[in-house]
């Protein structure tokens, strides 16, 4: 028996999981965040069902603070692949003027966590694929591939269903739902190497380019539109910057880099001294912050 390469083994595992969910779950949806992990997930879904299109829609929870380039990329990708892309915005939050500058962690809760819950409830989705990886954060390292949420979308880390071999148990009661993480076992390097091997399109923000940025709280923040108000002493500079993760532009720190090709990105990643989530502002707050938020219903 010839042994599968490392990437082939990860790909096969993910496709198996995606097919199982499509076959067993009543109303699945794939969360699509426009980031590189989502691009890989979408690619895997296209492969899993080929020549059929994925038999479920994709959902983008838009905080209205995403990079402009992300939204453009999202719309082009959906059109090109002929998939059903649902956008959901927490309109109540928009009306109340919830923004990342004045509301801090409340912003993430209202525009991301609450918005996601509202969207899942509105459409009655019973299973939602996410691109979470276990190498991202300590509490994720403990999460199963099929992760169950009660009717309030909360996670109970102390009472996870045992997950044996690849016999996923997709049975749920009314009101409950499942988060499914097909690329749980991938690392950041695997993601980049797979993007390269499969020639997957990603948002250009991942590649270094001259971009208008400011330095704020030790992070390089891109000035994507005029909603970002400069504080005293801050000034816009043009720097060669790229992003290792993508989210809301005021909360996503870039890194100075000259990497303009996938090979250069992979080189940088392999020699990375900081793991990727440090450029997301929320994670460093206190040990266990991610676990706390997941229990409350964060994806």
């Amino acid at each position, binding site marked *: *028996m*010839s*042994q*599968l*390469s*490392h990437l*082939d*083994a*990860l*790909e*096969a595992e993910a*496709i*198996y999981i995606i*097919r*199982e969910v*499509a*076959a*067993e779950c009543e109303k699945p949806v794939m969360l699509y965040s426009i980031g590189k992990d989502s691009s890989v997930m979408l690619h895997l879904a*296209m*492969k*899993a*069902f*080929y*020549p*059929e*299109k994925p038999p479920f829609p994709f959902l983008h929870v838009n905080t209205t603070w995403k990079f402009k380039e992300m939204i453009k990329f999202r719309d082009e990708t959906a059109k090109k692949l002929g998939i059903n892309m649902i956008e959901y915005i927490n309109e109540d939050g928009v009306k109340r003027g919830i923004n990342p500058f004045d509301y801090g962690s409340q912003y993430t809760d209202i525009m991301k966590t609450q918005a996601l819950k509202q969207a899942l409830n509105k459409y009655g989705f019973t299973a939602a694929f996410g691109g979470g990886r*276990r*190498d991202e954060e*300590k*509490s994720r*390292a*403990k999460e199963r591939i099929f992760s169950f949420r009660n009717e309030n979308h909360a996670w109970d*880390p*102390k009472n*996870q*269903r*045992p*997950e*044996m*071999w690849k*016999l996923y*148990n997709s*049975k*749920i*009661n009314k009101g409950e739902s499942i988060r499914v993480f097909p690329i*749980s*076992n991938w*690392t950041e*390097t695997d993601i980049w190497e797979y993007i390269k091997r499969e020639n997957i399109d990603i948002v250009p923000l991942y590649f270094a380019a001259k971009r208008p940025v400011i330095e704020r709280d030790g992070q390089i923040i891109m000035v994507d539109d005029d909603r970002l108000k400069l504080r005293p002493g801050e000034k816009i500079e043009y720097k060669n910057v790229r992003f290792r993760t993508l989210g809301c532009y005021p909360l996503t720190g870039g890194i100075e880099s000259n990497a303009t090709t996938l090979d250069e990105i992979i080189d940088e990643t392999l020699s*990375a*001294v*900081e*793991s990727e989530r*440090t450029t997301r502002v929320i994670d460093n707050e206190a*040990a*266990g912050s991610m*676990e*706390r938020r997941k229990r409350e219903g964060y994806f």
Partner: protein
Amino acid sequence: MSGLLKFITCGSVDDGKSTLIGHILYDSKLLYADQEKALELDSKVGSRGGAIDYSLLLDGLMAEREQGITIDVAYRYFTTEKRSFIVADTPGHEEYTRNMAVGASFADLAVILVDAKQGVLVQTRRHARICALMGIRYFVFAVNKMDLVDYSEERFKEIVAQIQELSEELHLASVKIIPVSATEGDNVTTHSDNMPWYTQEPLLAYLENIDVSEKKQEEGFYMPVQRVCRPDHTFRGFQGQIESGAVSVGDTIVTLPSNEHAKVKSILVGDKDAQTADAGRPVTIQLDKEVDVSRGCVLAKDTKLPVSKKFTATILWMDDEELTVGKDYLVKLGTRTIPGILKNIQYKIDVNTGEFIPVGRLRKNEIAVCDLVLQEEIVIDAFAKHKTLGELILIDRISNMTSACGVVENPTLDETKDLKCAFAHGNLKANGDIFEEYYYDLEAMNVFKVQPSDKTYTIGDVIPVKGETYQYPDSFDVVVLREQVAVSIRDQKVTAIIPLADFAYNDVPVINGRGFAVHVTSAADVDAFKKELSAEGREISENFFNKWVDFETYRRIVFKDEHWTE
């Protein structure tokens, strides 16, 4: 290159397994800088204080860090120049056995820690047993804390002998034993100067070089169907993952359980056309003709796969609720989910000692050999032959909990052949349930039965008319409805075994196959009994039993307290 290695680490509370993995990550400079920072920070605020606590790398949940123990499986990822690794770090406590089994079901290799001071303990035996049960074939025993026994070769040799004994008992396929110190770093990533007498590879080098594919070979090609892909009327493809062997365009395959033959018309690996595809690949296979195949069916070639509804499996109970014999569960096996009943617990296997114990119930983290019956026939095989068709989970139909996992020992349990304690004469066979014992479990507060030992009685044999929970007369007739056989007992001896159709009333008490009195005292009664029975059809109703049969005449229920063993 050697591909991905998935391994599990197991050890007891203070064996230091998290420290061992933490050390590999740290030594190999595989830690990202900010993880290192968080680690030092956590150590300082944590109660242990002082030096870097490597185990904090792995114990990710808040409750775990508070209690200083590992509760759930944590997965860690690292890559060396030679290989990529995924390690499942699992809890050692007996109460978290099921979480250890989760990690074991995922892994190809187990690293089991043994404390050099203590040697092989009951928990070492438990860990090795669970890993072997879940299908792990490669074992590395890391004899840890060698620094605390002065790096003594003599002590190491004593432990090697203990491990070899365990390995023989569990029939472990591949065993490697390495003396290490996780805290000091001896023989973890680099060869230790403290143990010049150990000249073989250190742990990490061994993990980098081991080939775990060799013992995975299975006979033939098979693919359980996950779904049928039908984008339009011109295309009908079966999607699934090839579990063993290879398949090529033009091959003739058999579809199971429908047992039709067809030729492979096309193969897609992912979204690419292929002439051939081998084990592990996600494929879409088109056949040259219409076949009766849907999710849960299996495509196969060059191997014979059993189709069956009754089978024997070793199961690990994982639910907080106890196992109830006779309750129906959803059984998921391969890609098939189907109702099934757990009919009988043959015996429990003590996870620590391996001893067989007859029981009537099973609690969380206990292992037992059980008989199951499914609603209909499915493709199923012994775990040792075709792994994927021998793995199963039981799902509680109300709580949806994954109540148990199991591995198939015997895929085709034949009740007439495998009958225990049967009456037999020529072609006639009947079960021996009249020798079952009924107990009331004082702790669980429920009634359970214990099956008799397998003994077959034929004409001329003396039978035990008195048991712990039953007392029959010296002479009586047994009518076994299931097998349609009647047995005559005179003066405690079997005097006749005849077809039920030929049975007539003989002026002795009549007892049914389960040891319950039948209310007949004349030939006319027997005629009425037979007439009503034949009107009952296959499933005999409760009304019939309540009218004709009585439990208390010869049987009673005996109280048993908690730790009942034979």
